[in-house]
């Protein structure tokens, strides 16, 4: 079963560098020759297996849901609707997380995402902007997101600011600007097209879910199949090596933050549509959600490694947890305590599952050798 041989240990704990068990080349060659190589092998072997762990966590969460609310889960149409609700709930943070994943893989961090969403949302719902119609609103949201991202990127790549500080400053400043623009009021969107984004279904599936899917697919292709993605991994994994290989590290860093800003712009449109309004305090702490989702999804905070699918699963796990609490009517404080436990358990399950799989395969392999 060589195609399941793990190639690296789970997330590196503080100070305990991951030791990567290597793959037996002969076995791999054999497997390849006999065409048994499964589709997810090759480039993302380790990531794929980690993602299996996340899927297992998701399944556990759903099972808990079934056990605690058999009445609801007994109803197939409710289950389907609930699944869509979870995905809809995940969609906004999901789009932000895709951008965040690129930034973190590229060795940075973006604390300003929530603020950018708010600024873009507020900007696109001012009376003036709304007068330009849906096109003008979407255009302005995307442009604002992109522009703020570019400023982040410039500060970090050419101003040489530490990403944490630069984006923290941007977070504060962008929320301030959003409050200034909106006069701290909630700005209602009167545009039916925009508001419709959140309520339209296509083939029974909400438009928001399609948008999330499109962004995820685009992100996946960008990361795994393009030179941009390869540079991202190189820049985050070893910036000096990337530089000496002729990659323009600064320009690439700039592009990463711009990408994140653009994702925030998209998210702003989605969130504004959902709330049919925007205000300076919206998308509160999305930065934390996005970073947490990316990291639970296997992205290394220090850069150089991560997967889009993992990040997506991370977001979905978080929104499934929220949903689980909602359908069980848990109080906030109980909810928070349980949530902490679930996060820890999720990561542990993922690791144990991963390790025991490794061991199991290891044992298997040894007996056949």
């Amino acid at each position: 079963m060589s195609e399941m041989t793990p190639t690296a240990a789970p997330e590196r704990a503080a100070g305990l560098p991951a030791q990567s068990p290597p793959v037996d080349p002969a076995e791999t060659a054999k497997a390849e020759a006999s065409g048994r190589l499964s589709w997810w092998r090759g480039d993302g072997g380790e990531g794929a297996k980690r993602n299996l762990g996340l899927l297992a966590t998701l399944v556990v969460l759903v099972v808990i849901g079934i056990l605690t609310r058999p009445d609801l889960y007994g109803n197939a149409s409710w289950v389907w609707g609930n699944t869509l609700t979870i995905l809809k709930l995940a969609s906004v943070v999901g789009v932000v997380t895709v951008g965040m994943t690129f930034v973190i893989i590229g060795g940075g961090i973006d604390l300003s995402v929530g603020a950018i969403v708010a600024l873009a949302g507020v900007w696109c719902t001012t009376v003036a902007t709304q007068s330009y119609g849906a096109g003008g609103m979407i255009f302005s949201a995307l442009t604002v997101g992109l522009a703020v991202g570019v400023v982040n990127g410039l500060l970090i790549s050419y101003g040489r600011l530490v990403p944490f500080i630069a984006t923290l400053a941007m977070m504060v400043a962008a929320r301030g600007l959003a409050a200034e623009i909106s006069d701290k009021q909630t700005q209602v969107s009167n545009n039916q097209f925009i508001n419709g984004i959140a309520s339209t279904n296509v083939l029974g599936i909400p438009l928001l879910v399609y948008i999330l899917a499109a962004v995820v697919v685009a992100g996946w292709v960008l990361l795994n199949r393009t030179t941009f993605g390869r540079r991202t991994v190189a820049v985050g994994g070893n910036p000096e090596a990337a530089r000496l290989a002729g990659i323009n590290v600064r320009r690439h860093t700039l592009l990463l933050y711009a990408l994140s800003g653009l994702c925030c712009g998209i998210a702003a449109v989605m969130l504004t549509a959902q709330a049919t309004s925007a205000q300076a305090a919206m998308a509160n702490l999305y930065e934390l959600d996005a970073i947490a989702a990316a990291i639970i999804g296997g992205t290394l905070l220090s850069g150089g490694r991560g997967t889009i699918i993992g990040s997506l699963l991370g977001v979905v796990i978080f929104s499934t947890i929220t949903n689980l609490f909602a359908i069980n009517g848990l109080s906030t404080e109980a909810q928070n305590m349980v949530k902490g436990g679930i996060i820890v358990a999720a990561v542990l399950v993922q690791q144990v599952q991963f390790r025991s799989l490794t061991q199991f395969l290891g044992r298997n392999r040894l007996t056949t050798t």
Partner: protein
Amino acid sequence: MVTKAPLVEAPADTVVGEVVLRLTDVVKTFPGVRALDGVQLEVRAGEVHCLLGQNGAGKSTLIKVLSGVHRPDSGEVQWRGEPADFANPQAAMRAGIATIYQELDLVEDLSVAENAFLGHEPRRLGFVRRGHMARRTREILGRLGHPEIPPGRMVRALPAAGKQVVSMARALSHEARLIIMDEPSAVLAHDEVGNLFRIIRELTAQGIAVIYISHRMEEIREIGDRVTVLKDGRTTAANLPARETPTRDLVARMTGRTIEYVFPDRPADDPAGAELLQVEGLTRHGEFADVSLSVRAGEIVGIAGLVGSGRSELLETIYGARRPQAGTVRMAGRALRPGSVGAAVKAGMGMAPEERKSQALLLGEPIYRNVTLATFGRYARLGFTDAGRERAEADRIGDSLELRPRDVRRPVRTLSGGNQQKVVVGRWLLGDTRLLLLDEPTRGVDVGARAELYQVIRSLAAQGVGVLLVSSEVPEVLGLADRVLVMREGRVVREAPAGELDENTVLDLVMAGSLMEGAPA
């Protein structure tokens, strides 16, 4: 700087010649790899026991078993007559085994003294006895022949060679009965190696045993007592006399075949074409000054010099990785934008840097992605990468450099040091590089692969590629290059065709610099 006092106090109960370490049938597997597959080893007090083997043969793994980093799967380790099982590095250290690892293991933001005594700092009530520690460090550094390194200096500020000295100081700061050195000379220049050997002799005179790993046969002849040869994780020959065994025998046992350890012939007629690289008056204060040189297409130009003579900095500056304070770099007559690697690469330059881990490799990424790191854009169409093509190209490079293991999808992290080096050099053998800057390209590369590498470099030159080669091994520079520059303290002190120089002349130039009259051209 000859020392009078003994470097390390020998443990009182040492009997020279007594077997201190015996390994029987030691096996260590990593998932999918048998790194050690039945190793036998016997080390006596007071001897220098050399370990020989190709890249990936298992030498480093073996010493990691000895120093408590890895635990063997099976087999027995006997330490001073008793079975030993070192659960962690601390246990091995306590038993009296000190190790200088192949990869530098220093903490950049601690001082020299703190690094030397890391983990066993002299202390009182938890407080570091800084004065005491500094004094002892100064003492050890002095005996190592480097009194100029201040114990309080951050290790970050030291050049690679200085760091190696600190690593050595750390090994000597323990009371050890066995000191293991994994390719210590790989980052040292000629005079430093002499220094190292002097220290080793002092150590063994105290009855301390030394395990010495190197790919340089001359060193083994000079310092070794007995040799054990590893091949594919097995002992293929044990306890050969280091001085008497013929080289071809050793090589045969390492590789299973015979290899001529010679440099490829230079082509009979001068193949060099038009001037490719012209450097004029290049200066970076404190590193090198007023360097002018040129490389023609198809020519191999070597730069010899001591560690610290500024060769690496020169190469990096030519490549645009550092910004010069004065001077110009031209490729094929066109001046390059200073301080821009992108411009240099676009003009056809490629550089294999000196420190593979920090400057060249993405350790977690697969081999093929490391090999194509500088060229993946060329195989891409409309920004989409072509993984199949990349793997094929990487495979080709792996073949020509005897990379092992050969599965190019393995993460580089799991490769042995020498094989990692091959990946670094291999990167620039792809694509349409017109000028290759090589900084210590054979560092840690075994005899067989080295010959292959020389062959590859020569044939690239034959295809019209210019090569600028920096190496601390003078024979390598003389054997491979067409023309040689000798650098001392940041200046070129001599330039001559390789044929006109011999090893001693170069060494004299490099050290004394008194032959200034004859240079520079």
